[in-house]
């Protein structure tokens, strides 16, 4: 029954109008495809001329007149929309003035959508999408990134909240919320990565769990497990009895070709999330929360699991050395988020102890709101509201 309902709902989804672009160079076509997808909320998708419902012509293009004639002679029944800086009234065409406003363009496209019974044939639309090029076809890298974004939602916050026996609102308890990375899978992974990079050859990390294959040349790992499984295993203390089953062994390079490509992931991305899930909002014991640290570089946030407050913490730690307890105080951030962030940054080698830096400078002051604080907050809000 569930399958039936889902497929029925899918069939009722409005299909975007198929739009052929004329009088635009490749760059403008790409821009328009993005515009239709984004601000126009998918009201149209760009397709090849043969598959289109509507022709969209940039009337400011030098040969626009000829293009219009050709379009009308080839497809006399197909609607034509002209875009121009100057108002135009040409028989058999609709007009949208530049700069194009999303509402106006959508209104015109929706008018044609009703005429062309665009609710039908979703399969054709998908096929057409695939033909149109880079704005539609997702590379494996993009697909992987999307999975990462989805994995970010909700689950992580829920996971951090479940740490038993620690009351994060209580300062006395916060300073006890440490963990020893040596007791976790993370430690073995970090050691294995070091050896692999030093020896510059692919190695396999054996454990009581699934083997992890590490490829230093592409800085990738391969693991036959999803994030849920990894998250669960990351938080489990590795009992001393398991130590005998942990080891590194050389990997035959020919294996690489036989591995499922979707299970490869970037080494940094893997280590970062493994550290977060090992930390569970605790700080690593060798980085006590009263010890100042600073960031050597900004983490590459577009490719990493994004923690709450991560950008704020980074902007603070890139300027001055701060103790995690100070960060919690200054940013009014949750201790779990700060500790998880510190753990992840340390695992990627992005953190440095900050005592010396602090000793050399005047004690860091809390950031003071700049002149444009209100404006920047509004921009931030706008970027996050989408």
């Amino acid at each position, binding site marked *: 029954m569930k399958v039936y309902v889902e497929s029925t709902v899918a069939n009722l989804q409005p299909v975007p109008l198929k739009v052929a672009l004329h009088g635009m160079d490749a760059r403008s076509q790409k821009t328009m495809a993005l515009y239709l997808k*984004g601000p126009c909320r998918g009201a149209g998708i760009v397709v090849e001329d043969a598959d289109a419902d509507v022709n969209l012509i940039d009337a*400011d293009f030098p040969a626009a007149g000829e293009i219009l004639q050709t379009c009308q002679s080839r497809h006399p029944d197909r609607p034509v929309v002209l875009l121009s800086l100057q108002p135009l009234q040409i028989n058999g065409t609709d007009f949208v003035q530049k700069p*194009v406003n999303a509402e106006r363009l959508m209104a015109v496209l929706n008018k044609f959508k009703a005429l062309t019974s665009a609710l039908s044939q979703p399969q054709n639309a998908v096929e057409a999408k695939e033909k149109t090029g880079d704005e539609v076809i997702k590379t494996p890298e993009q697909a992987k990134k999307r999975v990462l*974004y989805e994995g970010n939602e909700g689950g992580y916050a829920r996971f951090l909240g479940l740490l038993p026996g620690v009351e994060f609102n209580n300062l006395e308890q916060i300073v006890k919320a440490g963990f020893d990375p040596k007791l976790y899978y993370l430690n073995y992974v970090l050691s294995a990565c070091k050896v692999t990079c030093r020896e510059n050859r692919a190695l396999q990390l054996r454990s009581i769990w699934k083997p992890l294959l590490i490829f230093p040349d592409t800085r990738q790992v391969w693991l036959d497990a999803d994030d849920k499984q990894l998250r669960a295993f990351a938080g489990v203390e590795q009992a001393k009895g398991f130590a005998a089953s942990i080891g590194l062994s050389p990997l035959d390079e020919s294996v690489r070709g036989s591995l499922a490509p979707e299970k490869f992931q970037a080494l940094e991305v893997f280590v970062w999330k493994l550290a977060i899930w090992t930390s569970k909002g605790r700080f690593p014991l060798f980085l006590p929360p009263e010890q100042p640290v600073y960031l050597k*570089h*900004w983490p590459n946030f577009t*490719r990493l699991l994004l923690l709450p407050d991560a950008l704020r913490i980074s*902007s603070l730690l890139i300027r001055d050395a701060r103790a995690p307890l100070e960060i919690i105080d200054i940013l009014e951030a949750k201790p779990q988020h700060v500790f998880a962030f510190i753990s992840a940054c340390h695992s990627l080698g992005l953190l440095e102890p900050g005592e010396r830096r602090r000793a050399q400078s005047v004690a860091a002051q809390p950031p003071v709101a700049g002149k444009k604080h209100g404006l920047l*907050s509004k921009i931030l809000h706008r*970027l996050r509201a989408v």
Partner: protein
Amino acid sequence: MSQYKIIFTGPVGAGKTTAISSISDAPPVKTDAAASDMTKNRKASTTVAMDYGVMNLDGGEKVHLYGTPGQERFDFMWDILTSGGIGLVLLLDNTRADPFQDMRFFLQAFDKFIQATAVAIGVTQMDVCATPAIADYQRELKALQLNPPVFAVDAREFNDVSLLVQALLYSLDPGLKGEPNDSIQTY
């Protein structure tokens, strides 16, 4: 009402137009079109050669997004363009012959503006060409005594461009608030 702007710069093909499109509330105005045979009787030419987008903010304010022309022949415009700007987004194409040279060129060209504001660097096409890596860019920047955010960016992805601009904003003002404390962002 005050007008604000963020400047997007970088070499030709680095993704400036696409990045602006990704976060703009209006499509970038293509301003380098010659007059067509349908419009030339009204206006001979419309050649400005600059990408433009806009973000509408609460309270009716707007932030204008300007892309500098990639061609060096237009670099005289850059000083005018950056006047009153909030900050700089530098996009670099990793498939170019020497992206470090590009980076040095643009950082030098916008040196005064960066000193007065901030810069965030997005490296595009890293899925096509993985080297230089982000760490290599950071090494180069260290030699220039700079340490801005450097992210791998797909200019077509709103989230990538949004994060880059957010990092720019935090570089300008680390005291900004806004991230929800209890829930993870939908990136």
